[in-house]
């Protein structure tokens, strides 16, 4: 069985999906199911004390899905660590929960602040968290995060929500060559072919939110991404042919009629 083993969990799906920016909860739920994902990201935010009658997010997430709380919106290590501690308190999933560590540098690019991310990762690992850090596509940063004890490294394909796809496949290749823990492309996926391309390069998984929730038909896009992720994984395992500059006939060269 081809499984993704991550922080003590075993997943048959390699697509992790977000729960943000859906127009309503029923659409989100249908998209989560269509994606085949077994793990979904959630954010930690102040409770709206004025609007508590609202239906809870968790009610709409299928019970068998693993929750991956994130630190989205944090701009320094201290806030990210506090957010993870609150997530652990919110989480009924035990003392060693998976967390998606995201420490941003500026609101325009949403690029990660790697220095703060590494600092937070070290602290969280020491507190027993299984840390999945969002990072840039820099092999040096990925190595530092792996050495810090992270359960995976999650380089971006492109800025969060940009839909630009995999901007730097060669850096990703270097990260894949050197990394022993799972490599998950987090951010940048725009459409299904981006999923297939990343998976064909050998990444262990993908994390997608905006490209599904922002599609005209999020449920159909979720299914497309599921299929593309599976197709890309299969192609990676199958082993592609080398690229060649010139043609190479697929039919026999001998026995062609009219030959002398």
């Amino acid at each position, binding site marked *: 069985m081809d499984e993704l083993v991550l922080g003590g969990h075993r997943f048959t799906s390699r697509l992790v999906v977000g729960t943000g920016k859906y127009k309503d909860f029923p659409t989100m739920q249908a998209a989560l199911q269509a994606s085949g994902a077994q793990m979904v990201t959630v954010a930690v935010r102040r409770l709206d004390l004025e609007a*508590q009658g609202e239906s809870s997010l968790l009610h709409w997430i299928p019970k068998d899905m693993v929750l991956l709380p994130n630190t989205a919106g944090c701009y320094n290590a201290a806030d990210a660590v506090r957010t993870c501690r609150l*997530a652990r308190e919110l989480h009924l999933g035990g003392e060693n929960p998976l967390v998606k560590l995201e420490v941003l540098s500026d609101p325009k690019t949403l690029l990660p602040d790697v220095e703060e991310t590494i600092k937070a990762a070290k602290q969280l690992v020491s507190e027993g968290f299984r840390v999945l850090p969002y990072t840039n596509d820099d092999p040096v940063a990925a190595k530092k995060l792996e050495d810090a004890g992270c359960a995976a490294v999650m380089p971006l394909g492109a800025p969060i929500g940009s839909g630009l796809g995999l901007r730097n496949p060669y850096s990703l290749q270097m990260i894949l060559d050197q990394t022993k823990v799972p490599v998950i492309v987090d951010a940048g996926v725009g459409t299904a072919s981006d999923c297939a391309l990343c998976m064909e390069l050998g990444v262990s998984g993908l994390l997608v939110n905006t490209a599904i929730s922002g599609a005209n038909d999020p449920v159909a896009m979720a299914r497309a991404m599921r299929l593309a992720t599976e197709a890309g994984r299969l192609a990676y395992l199958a082993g592609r042919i080398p690229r060649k500059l010139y043609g190479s006939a697929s039919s026999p060269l001998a026995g062609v009629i009219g030959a002398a």
Partner: protein
Amino acid sequence: MQAIVNGEAMELPEGLTVSTLLEHLGVRAGRVAVERNGEVVRQARHREQKLAPGDRLEIVTFVGGG
């Protein structure tokens, strides 16, 4: 007494614990986590943890995110 709850200054009754604060605010028992002055107050301690004037409290929950 005065305290800051989710970033807003609030006038609260004296002698509240975390549990009675949540009741006072009408927060239904469920998935909320509470931080007092930067430290998480574990659920098991909500009944005994007393609040003090000037406390900074964060009451959080899970919302959609990526």
